[in-house]
């Protein structure tokens, strides 16, 4: 027989499952290394679960979770030295606020982007896999693929742009700025 669920645990399950992708996007936007980002997301999940009793249901959950993530990222910056990060604490706050504001937008865009990803084929996809699955630096990708470094940067830049356009088209309306 299973243990009783109480409504709080049920709420937490649903809220976290829905919010987690946006919290992850926020953390990844500031912490370049995906491994470090995963560590921080794990810490955020732990705090969210432990402090769920403090959560005020009248506030958006994702805002609360991003607030926790912001503190974790700030601590990471402090402990890892200044050379590892680009943004000061004011910018950090602006970015956290931005993620909260556009949260519904991102939730909608996620499925659209997954569809768009199916269109990425051939060698572009291979570069993408080296970058995001093998997590190689562009210079290593260039070595492997026999390309110049700049060409890899350009390809990644164009691909992100193409995916943004595809998401806009799929959503059938403007997504952010034109």
């Amino acid at each position: 027989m299973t243990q009783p669920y109480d409504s709080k645990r049920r709420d937490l399950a649903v809220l976290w499952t829905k919010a987690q992708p946006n919290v992850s996007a926020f953390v990844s936007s500031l912490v370049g290394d995906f491994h470090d980002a995963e560590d921080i997301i794990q810490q955020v999940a732990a705090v969210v679960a432990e402090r769920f009793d403090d959560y005020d249901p009248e506030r958006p959950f994702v805002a609360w979770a991003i607030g926790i993530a912001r503190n974790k990222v700030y601590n990471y910056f402090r402990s890892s030295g200044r050379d590892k990060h680009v943004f000061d604490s004011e910018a950090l706050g602006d970015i956290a606020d931005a993620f909260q504001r556009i949260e519904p937008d991102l939730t909608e865009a996620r499925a659209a982007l997954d569809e768009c990803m199916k269109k990425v084929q051939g060698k572009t996809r291979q570069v993408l896999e080296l970058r995001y699955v093998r997590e190689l630096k562009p210079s290593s990708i260039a070595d492997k693929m026999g390309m110049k470094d700049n060409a890899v940067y350009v390809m990644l830049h164009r691909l992100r742009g193409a995916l943004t356009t595809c998401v806009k088209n799929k959503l059938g309306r403007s997504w952010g700025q034109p």
Partner: protein
Amino acid sequence: MKLREDLIDLYLDGALTAEAAAELNAWVKASPEHAEEFARRTFIHRRIYENLQKLDLAQIMQQPSSGGPVFIEVGDLDESRESFAAIIEDGEEPGVDPPFTDLAAQEGGLPSLYQSTTDALTKQKYVTALSYVLRHIFTPKRVAILATAAAVLLGVVLAIVFLDGDQGEHEFADEPALPDSIIEKPSTKPVVAFLTAERDAEWDSQPDLELRPGQQFSLTQGFAEITTASGAVVILTAPATFELTDNDNAIYLSSGRLFGRCETASSKGFLVSTPSAQILDIGTEFGVDVNEHGETLTHVFQGEVEVRPVGNSTSELIRLVTNQALAVDSDGKAQVVDAAPQRFVRVVPSTTYQTAVLASRPMCYWRGPIVEDTRVLLDNGWLGAHGQASGSSLNHPEGHSDEDGSGSLEYRSAELASSVTVPYREEFGFNDKGFSISAWCWIEPGHQDVMRILSTRVKGGGIGLGVIGRGENATGGLPASAPILTLFGKSDVVATTAMPEGRWTHLAVTVSQADQVRIYIDGEEVQTHTIPHPKDAGQPGDADTQPLMIGRNPFTGQGVQAWQGRLDEIAIFDRFLPLEEIQKHLHSTRQAP
């Protein structure tokens, strides 16, 4: 707004100079739109990572246990004629993006091979993080399944770590087999619903927390709650077989019973399909029952639904409103039938006591807590007579048993105005089957006055259940805190045994078809008395459609008679309950020490 996707991308790919970093920092702070644009671009970056990680995990899982790593041939990539530096220097905006095929270079030679595997550490951390969250949220059973899955996955991952190299071919040695029954292959289909609660549930195949389209599940025992991504809540009572579709605001019910509640804006228009009908929710609460012949019965608890019979092209939409029911046979022939709310359970029980009470199909079952923002006390019985709380907070964190984490209603003597009001319902009136009331009570020691657990006025009289006091209002000669059942204007039945004060005590009152009243304290009969048939009190008049109040007397002429202490699990049954049934409820609970 000037876009700086060039800077953002260089930042994401780790190629920003110190100067460019300072520029990006300043640009983000310059306006909220800039910060949003940064968030969108980095979101794309993150989602590409998640998407590819997910696909890659799926590839690994789908490899046969005897198979080796997958090698993908990589062709030459054409170098772009344009350098990235040129884009930045020219300040060129990306403008119209090229088709994706333009991004890929022409086919070329095959100079290198690479192994398409996820970095092992990433996956390990992902599994660990997921386990951590789940451990805080889910049952030991589910965590055990996940831990097994994680261990097996880790085995695979470690095998990859040892064999992973920059280039060249490797063989997998003794790669562990992946039992399909334990690990569900990751799906790229979107999550359309979540398994949000279950009780004593047995499945033919245990569902994951996240439910995706195309999966069919059979609940063979117990109860389960599914919440769709749109916010519709569905309670399934075993046996039931269902499937989810690509629509995140719909469910296909092959057989069995479900209760649906659609309170969010996004769940409006929630669709239940069955072999014989489509039921579109317009209002808030309804039940659907599909029998073994594929016949569908729909009952509306509250609001409206539209039913479209399937297989009968000439049939029109049939609109049902509160307390109406419709049966559709397997040929699509529809027929209005008697209301059938008793068929449905509208909540997944969270304790063994609640499971036992719900099995007796209570008409009303207020088990708390009061919903914080709306101050509503939900009725989990089939009548759905929700109450409205007034006064200060009535929620006490402790329930009647150590198993009950949902708390109880607390009435403090200093706040006599606290109460719960349930709007009048015709069903509160007397019928020919008798009735029963049960509740867990915690009586404030030393209280002075008569106190009401609940009171209502129905059909020319009324009913009240409470305990007598020790002050001026006490009934002469009887002990304080003795239970009293009042049939207004007819009769009072008072037990000669008092309920203990300062601890949780179970109280039950039953009235049989032969008008015999029995009172039980903790399952022991303390009083039997025959009363005049309450129905003889006459027909209801305008003054008789008063609300039912929990924790006080609605008739101020007799004083408020406010409850002092706590109340929990208040249930009304529209029939006489035999002693064995009451004891079954009682013995199912684990009392706090």
